[in-house]
């Protein structure tokens, strides 16, 4: 897989640059996943706000609910949840599509027509993922904070002033930036693993199914490991 990733980087730097294919994949990975990411974000924010409210009320610190939720979302929940949701929706589709192309000899056909399949099929998917994972993570942040605001202000009756004031106090651009950095790393991980699993598929429909399952499982575990590693390095023990 490391060789495959290296080859992908090398081909990404070579012309022709297929902007049309990248846009197509951005629409698939980004626009196509926006709904599920938005719904997940909203509910994650709502649930988190309710739980935080129960915990912080004991210290008469309900005003910190908004800030706590926003901080958790920005640094951890938004990048991790978004990456896991995209893996389930788009990563599995990428592995299946490329796997089917492999076992029906469409990838071989591309090679015989003097077009490198990594350049044509893999690079646009990886570039689109690198661009769209942070965008969707921001969507998750916004929808999650919106959900927390609704629960905190309208259901738990937390005054709007402290809710927003403490959010500004607890969360700054570095927290959001740290989450977006993770999103870029996760985008790279998911796109490389799922394209590789599809690209290397063999053995007909069963092989494609196995490749997809392995791609999704490996991506999910890699996301969690990378999240821990980045947090450990940036925050410390």
């Amino acid at each position, binding site marked *: 897989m490391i060789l495959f990733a290296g080859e992908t980087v090398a081909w990404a730097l070579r012309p022709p640059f297929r902007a049309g294919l990248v846009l197509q994949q951005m629409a698939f990975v980004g626009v196509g996943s926006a709904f599920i990411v938005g719904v997940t974000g909203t509910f994650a924010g709502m649930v988190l706000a309710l739980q935080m409210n129960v915990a912080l009320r004991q210290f008469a610190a309900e005003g910190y609910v908004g800030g706590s939720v926003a901080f958790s979302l920005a640094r951890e929940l938004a990048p991790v949840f978004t990456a896991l949701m995209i893996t389930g929706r788009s990563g599995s589709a990428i592995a299946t599509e490329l796997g089917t192309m492999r076992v029906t*000899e469409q990838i*071989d*056909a591309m090679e*015989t*027509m003097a077009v490198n399949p990594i350049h044509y099929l893999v690079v646009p998917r990886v570039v689109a993922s690198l661009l769209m994972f942070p965008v969707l993570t921001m969507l998750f942040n916004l929808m999650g904070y919106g959900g927390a605001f609704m629960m905190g202000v309208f259901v738990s009756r937390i005054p709007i002033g402290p809710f927003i004031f403490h959010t500004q106090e607890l969360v700054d651009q570095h927290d959001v930036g740290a989450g977006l950095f993770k999103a870029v790393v996760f985008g790279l991980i998911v796109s490389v693993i799922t394209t590789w699993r599809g690209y290397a598929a063999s053995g007909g429909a069963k092989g494609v199914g196995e490749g997809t399952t392995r791609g999704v499982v490996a991506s999910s575990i890699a996301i969690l490991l990378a999240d821990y590693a980045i947090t450990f390095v940036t925050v410390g023990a």
Partner: protein
Amino acid sequence: MIEVRDLYKSFGDNHVLRGISLTIPRGTTYVVLGGSGSGKTVLMKHVIGLLKPDRGEVMVAGKVITGLSGRALTEARSVFGMVFQGAALFDSMTVLDNVAFPLTEARKGAGLSTDEVRKRVIAKLEVVDLGEEVLDQYPAQLSGGMRKRVALARALVSDPQIVLYDEPTTGLDPITTDYVDGMILNAKRRLGITSMVISHDVASAFKVADRLAVLYDGHLAAEGTPAEVRASKEPFVQRFLSTWFEKQ
């Protein structure tokens, strides 16, 4: 045009090719016959550089292509067109985009306008008796025979010197099989193309071949003109050919 020298290939303990050597002169149609799993497709994939041999080499138009990679291999492949067993059309693209693919995506097509590409696609579809009405259809909307024809049009669109056919008549009814045989003969007659055909269809093979080889147990059991192969005393060759000739 194509020269295969002492080619060996194994997958684990499965020794698929054991010292294959053959020569395909320019402008001839060369058919490799053999049973299922005899390594015919593996041999063809070596010829176009999709597989690398354990030993031996392949020369195309005087250049050794074995061991090439990257841009050099891409250039070596530019003389080829290939028709895959299952057609291998891109199912997310229309017929127009499929046939145009070698022109629009490979470097050799750079500089052609959309209109020129469309004209060339229509011209190649005419060679295989398909009209403009199929241009906007997707592979899933076509019959098996039509897909093979589109695949041949795609293989011909960049005016290759060599076309490789992998089991071109497998799974087709007798009328479509006859039609595909005609297409192969036609491509040679009208365009002067060198062809290599992989098949287990004895009738088709004897119809289109200038030269024939029978692959068995990793080596060529017989090789020569159709008449020479027909006269071969090799037991496997006799048994293989009798499956068809005894019906006649």
